[in-house]
């Protein structure tokens, strides 16, 4: 099973640049949709082994709104977006222009707004990813749950029958009226396309595949 090698700072810079392109496009799309400026900032982009995902997510790992989208095309994967439940109000306010009621009991409209945002974000990131690694990926319809992040992650990893793979993680910060919510975008490849995608990353980042 391929393991992500330790990435050097300039590799991470290249990944982050890709994230910035995606976030920029998503922010533009959202601003047009909402009719007002939307602030979005990519704080970190990296490849993480699936075994250490829980630790990597750290404080954001307890209770989340999780949106899953199937990904197909030249590789098969799953996108998982995790939004810290405690700060979900920031996102709802950003999308609907009013503070959310109870994040534990989201309305149909709030759920649908978060799923729509997830679709826009995923489309933008997959496009930006194509710009970097030249692997064409498209996404399907989103589904959302509110639960513990570890239970959600476990389910997704188990479904792919892989616990020794890796995921691309993009940390995106959304801000609305001085409050910030960090959302995690995870691209989790299916076991049989792990290698294809990792090689594409290495090629794009100029890492020798057999080093």
């Amino acid at each position, binding site marked *: 099973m391929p393991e992500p090698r330790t990435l050097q700072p300039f590799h991470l810079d290249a990944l982050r640049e890709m994230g910035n392109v995606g976030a920029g496009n998503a922010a533009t799309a959202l601003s047009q949709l909402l009719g007002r400026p939307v602030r979005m900032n990519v704080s970190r982009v990296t490849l993480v082994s699936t075994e250490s995902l829980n630790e990597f997510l750290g404080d954001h790992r307890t*209770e989340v709104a*999780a949106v*899953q989208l*199937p990904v197909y095309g030249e590789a098969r994967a799953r996108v998982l977006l995790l939004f810290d439940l405690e700060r979900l109000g920031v996102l709802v306010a950003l999308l609907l222009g009013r503070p959310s009621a109870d994040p*534990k009991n989201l309305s149909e409209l709030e759920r649908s707004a978060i799923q729509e945002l997830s679709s826009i974000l995923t489309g933008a990131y997959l496009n930006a990813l194509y710009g970097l690694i030249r692997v064409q990926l498209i996404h*399907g*319809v989103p*589904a959302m*749950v*509110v*639960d*513990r*992040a*570890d*239970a*959600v*992650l*476990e*389910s*997704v*990893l*188990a*479904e792919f*029958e892989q*616990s020794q793979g890796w995921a691309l993680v993009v940390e995106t910060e959304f801000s609305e009226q001085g409050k910030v919510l960090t959302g995690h975008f995870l691209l989790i490849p299916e076991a049989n396309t792990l290698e294809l995608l990792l090689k594409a990353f290495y090629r794009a980042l100029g890492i020798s595949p057999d080093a």
Partner: protein
Amino acid sequence: MPESDSDVRIAGIKAARAPETLSAIGLGSCVALILWEPQMRVGALAHIMLPSSLAFPPSPLPGKFADTALPALLQQLKDLGARQGNLVGKLVGGANMFSAQMAPNQLSLGLRNVMAAREALRLSGIPLKAEEVGGTKGRTIKFRPEDGRVLVRKMYETDVWL
């Protein structure tokens, strides 16, 4: 809270003697297969990820699959002095969290895990005493070999004892 509790991680197996307890945190589609021996007050828990090992290369983690987990559980319990004839089983987990994305008539991984664990118990002749399985919510559990009880916790729901 008892002072000694072990978290059984995904694909892991652990046995414990009262008053120790065993936990599994964030069970999604995974299933916790629990065996308890009332006389010796010992028990063991497997945090199972997949129903069957058949299509996979041999794994160093027997707890990963329902079919390989059961013999490993039995071995660990025998090492603690348990008698197989006294054992009872409990099952928790097997949720289908993203049920909205399932094709019609498709069996979820959670449900397949539950069915495989039930079958493993049946083949070993161990009675299934209680279960709390399926649904769409993740679970966190704590098992007490002291009295065989299992605490099941789901988000926004009242705790359940099995």
